[in-house]
């Protein structure tokens, strides 16, 4: 039984001429204990997809089943309870509440479950121990480094034992050392049986994933399994097409981006074409049931 099953899910924003198609008939099945990396250029609909899966948003069209339960038409109160018990969110900007201590932040989801203060504090403290922040319990978020803040955010996401962790660019604001720390933590959580979906622009981070989903213009264009420890093949290709700047460019004062537009303009679409072709049919045809 798949954990998440999206069928022809679309999401439209705006009205009339200003309508934007954020998701275009996306079909996606995710099983339990998968570690899914979602990649794609900015504005391709990755975050919208995460928000829909995390029940923060509703699809305009299509069906969404979470543990075989149709959840897109549920009332907001019921969706909030599912979010509370089943989904843990990790955001790029951490989103810790600045007026609360780290401990209070981590314990916050338990408040909405009606857990007594003493139990909340105990559980939150244990969770902080797990992410290695026990000694920072009574610090305020502004006193933490980026990596520590994200670890606290992960502790908060984990406090209700959710089966799904949704991380929208969890390392987007972090340096490489902190990124590694956060990804190792997510990897540990994955090993304990949680399903993790994370959005990233960094191909290197696909080493942690068991599956990589590529999106473009609101559609899933490519979906591949990958071995833990290896950069996903498609992601590796992207790695080498990422524009780089050298000393010469700096001296010439020419923007690297402009250089790429001029030089690789004709090559770029050709390089991406096979991936897109592969994708158009793939998502719908793909059956991933039974895979663990």
């Amino acid at each position, binding site marked *: 039984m798949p954990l998440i099953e999206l069928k022809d899910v679309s999401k439209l924003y705006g009205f009339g001429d200003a309508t934007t198609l954020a998701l275009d008939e996306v079909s996606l099945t995710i099983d339990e204990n998968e570690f899914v990396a979602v990649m794609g250029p900015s504005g391709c609909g990755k975050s919208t997809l995460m928000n829909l899966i995390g029940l*923060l948003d509703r699809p305009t069209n299509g069906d969404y089943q979470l543990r075989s339960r149709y959840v897109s038409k549920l009332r907001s109160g019921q969706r909030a309870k599912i979010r509370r018990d089943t989904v843990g969110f990790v955001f790029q900007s951490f989103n810790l509440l600045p007026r609360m201590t780290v401990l209070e932040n981590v314990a916050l989801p338990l408040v*909405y479950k*009606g857990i007594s203060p003493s139990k909340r504090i105990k559980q939150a403290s244990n969770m902080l121990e797990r992410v290695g922040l026990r000694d920072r319990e009574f610090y305020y978020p502004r006193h933490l480094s980026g990596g520590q803040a994200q670890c606290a955010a992960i502790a908060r996401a984990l406090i209700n034992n959710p089966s799904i962790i949704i991380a929208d660019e969890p390392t987007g604001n972090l340096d490489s050392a902190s990124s590694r720390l956060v990804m190792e933590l997510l990897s540990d959580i994955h090993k304990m049986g949680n399903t993790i979906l994370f959005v990233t622009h960094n191909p290197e981070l696909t080493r942690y994933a068991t599956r990589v989903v590529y999106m473009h213009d609101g559609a899933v264009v490519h979906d591949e399994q990958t071995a833990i420890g290896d950069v996903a093949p498609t992601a590796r290709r992207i790695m080498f097409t990422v524009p780089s700047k050298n000393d010469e460019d700096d001296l010439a004062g020419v923007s690297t981006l402009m250089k790429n537009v001029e030089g690789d303009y004709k090559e770029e679409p050709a390089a991406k074409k096979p991936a897109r072709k592969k994708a158009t049919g793939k998502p719908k045809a793909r059956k991933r049931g039974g895979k663990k």
Partner: protein
Amino acid sequence: MSAINRGNIRMALASVRSTKWRSMLTMLGIIIGIVSVVMVVGIGEGVKREVAHQIDQFGKDLITVRPGKLQKDNGRIVTNTDLLFGLNSISGLTENDLKTIQKSDHVRLAAPLGLVPGSVKAGDRKLDQTMVIATNSSLPAALNRDVPYGDFFDEEGEDDNVAVIGRSVAGALFDDFVPLGQTFEFRGKTFIVRGMFDDFKSTPLSPASNFNNAIFIPHKVAEELTGNSVQMYSILAKPDKLENAKAAQASIEKRMLKSHGNEEDFSVLDQKQNLAASSNVLSLITTMVAAVAAISLLVGGVGIMNIMLASVTERMHEIGVRKAIGATSRQILNQFIMEAAVLSVVGGVVGIALSIAGVFALRTYTSLKPVISVEAIAVATFASLAIGIIFGTIPAIKAARKDPIEALRHE
């Protein structure tokens, strides 16, 4: 109380603490409102109690005749402010009325109270605010009072230029503690102070309110001074026996009606009715002033709504985060309503504390004796809580209805 609500209250208190100035200014409206309502009601209640004490002071059998018709509604006395102050009396009561009352059955004595306008001079001191009251020798008996210093003018002395003064006049007009034998000028005549009353218990809005600040002169002398135009605002009468009070009242009423050609343009009141009239007026005045004060509570409520709306907008991102981690709309609604309620209840408590301090100050430094009842405190607390909930609801609904995605995007 559930753990969630306890948490909400703690969070709300923390929020009040963290934005001290803003919270203080927001609460100011509520504080002013509560202080004014509690103080006004307290002063009204205090005055009412003192008026009640008057029965004991002047005796239960005192009959008061006043100009103006008493309005009765199903036997209950209805407010008539004119009656209280005798303001409607173009003619007032007359010498004739006094004689009629004196002749009535079971009436032992009757004393008029007439106001003589004019200022009083003694040496280089001049008093404009002093009431000069024209009366007769029966006044001390009517008021149940002795004259401890000197004595009151007797019937024979009613033609002389003598005066009996209230306690406050002694200090204001003469430096002497007991200025017996001293003289003062009034309307070109010299009066000798013959006696002085002890302190009258101050009862604002009652006929005796200014007796401490009054100079009593013989009625006949006053008539001479003014050319027979002294206006009697009241005539006090006493029955021969306590049990004849009702009969005396009825007799006065009957005779007066006859002498006024069956036109009931006067009122004959026993002490209870007198008190009821005063109490009703007081209740009316208290209610009116309290209603005006309550408007400031309303303004305070609008202030809370305003600040809560600003707070919701400021904390939109926080609302998004809370919703993302599983808060339901109802929980967000409760959180913001609780914050508004805490803000206004804290304001209410501060207001009550200030009211108590104010009442204490008034009791210490003025002649007013306001009281704060448990009911007033309970009502003030409930009112501030209600205001918080009522005015906090709209901002809270705004917060609760916010779409989580939109809220999260808000920076």
